[in-house]
């Protein structure tokens, strides 16, 4: 029988679909009667979705032109 702690150690692999079939069956059996793990799995999946969709740390493209200019200046300098 799988405990909640076991479920927590496998939840990452489960989200990434990286568990063997027999482990998956056991995890889902646990899931079918454990409300806490259902909540954690559901919210972990949503977390992942929010984090990937959030566009976090994206800067507008024009921010990078000055950086590119500096790099190119250094490279041209080195070449001559």
């Amino acid at each position, binding site marked *: 029988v799988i405990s909640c*702690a*076991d479920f*927590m*150690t496998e*939840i*990452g*692999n489960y*989200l*990434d*679909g*990286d568990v063997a*079939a027999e482990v*998956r*069956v056991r995890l*889902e*059996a646990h*899931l*079918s009667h454990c409300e*806490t793990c*259902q*909540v*954690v*799995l*559901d*919210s*972990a*999946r*949503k*977390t*992942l*979705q*929010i*984090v*990937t*969709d*959030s*566009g*976090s*740390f*994206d*800067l507008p*493209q024009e921010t*990078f*032109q000055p*950086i*590119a200019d*500096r*790099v*190119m200046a*250094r*490279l*041209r300098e080195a*070449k001559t």
Partner: protein
Amino acid sequence: MSYLREAEVSSSFPPFEAFREHFGFVPKIYLAQTLLPRLIEAEAALVEAVLFQQRALSPIQKECILLVVAAAHDNVYGVTRHYQRLRLIGMAEQQIDRILAGHRQARLPTADAGLLDFALKLARHGAPISQADVATARAQGLSDESILEAILVTAWANFLCSLSTGLGVAPDFEPREIRHQPPDFSAESESTEASIGPYLTTVENGPGGYAAVLQEQFGFVPNLFRAQTRRLDVVGAEIGVLETLLFTGDLTRVQKERILLVVSAANRNTYGVAVHSQILTTLGTPPDETDQIALDHQRARLPEEDKALLEMVRRLATEPHAFGRSDIERLQECGFSQRHVLEAVVMASFTIFLNTVQFGLGAKPDFTPRRMFGPAPPKKAHLSSPEPRPTPREFAVDPDAEAIAKVRGGDLDAFEVLILRHSKRVYRTLVGILGNADEARDAVQETFLKAFQHLGSFEGRARFSTWLVSIASNTGLQFLRERRPLDSLDDDEFEPDGFRPRQIRAWTEDPEQFYSRTETRSLVEGAVLKLPAKYRVVVMLRDMEQLSAEETAAALGLGIPAIKSRLLRGRLMLREALAPHFARSAKEVAP
């Protein structure tokens, strides 16, 4: 509730007790068959073997197959029922919606996405699975036992769709609107030749009891059952349904064999047509007459009512969208009773089940087919928006190859193109590692200078963008060690007891709708920046940059187990940090 009346059954009718125990209620599709309780018993045994028995596939995987196949057939009864079932066994509505909208975009594990691809392809009658499809499924991590179960569950899904349409069963719950976009398989190479199986390995079970039963009832052991010896419990239950259909009830055996023949022909199932032609011949129908029934029953020398019976099942198999109460009424006008109609609909639906299993397994015909059916022309109805299949990474041409070649050839300006193309990504990686925007900009510059220096050692084994991210990671880590030696990335202290979740309130269904994009973004950025660096780096590379575990391990010089455990910890910490903002009561009460 359906086109036919229901009969009283005892409240302790065993199949209904089993359904109540398993589903929590008796689905209306079985109530609609109470005129023939023995049939329900036989179906319940098959449900037990195919759905309730836990072997290779999980209940969620099976329900997902049932759901997408029902959706592909536009079957409201099935979509409604399997949607509810998936919710009940723990899948979030949002995820179910995503799977319906297109499972290839639903972030499903590769094996699960492959499973649904396989099931959807198989569920479309007349587009036989080939050895290549089975090879693809195996490559996606599915065992032969899983593939066999997928075939059986898909066949059962097809059975339920046909049965619910044929009987006009009302949904068990508030019906759901179907918004479904199955992948377009027509763009993928599909064999136009009849594929020869069997595709799956079988297991030797010795002279099983099933063989003796078949030998006695049919005079031979059909290859269709030989190909399923891995699951003798299923074979036994299938034979049970077939026996009940063929040897009990009010329609004659010949009428039933004709249904098997006509529906198999409508499904272009060469195997089914060969078997049932042969059986009809042994029952006394001349071969050319059998051929005529398979080809066009309206022109066969049959009584009008028998033609009407065959026309009803043909329409059910090929035009389910147009099928309705009038099809049933027409039969009743010809003198058929409600029990006759029920038998005919179940017989037709079970033929679809058998045809689907045969298409999936590629079982060889037991008799030389008098007629070979090729795949049907692709059905266009549900395939309005073809979605390009993503090119596997290893075969894709690196979009940067041209610019890299130019830089190597001395064209310095081409490097600026590469900088501008990738600086966003490199910046994101670095801000994730360093947790500071100004430092990250400096590190971006440093990264591109290093990349230029080492361009000679870039071998093109990974994509340029991945290679660049690994340089960025190293640069970021170097900055971190120099500037903040205390924020260590290397210590992997032993953490004995697993992570205990503290926030355990359920989240809202659609968490992103409660905040503007800017708000969500700042919540995420805040939470990510608060993570300890060693977790933050892995979350950034895996979840933001979508690198594989292997690529991340290589970029950070860590082993895969370390990557996995840090990613898990990082994700769970992010979940804890975001939970107060997205948990249910916090947001849904206030307008």
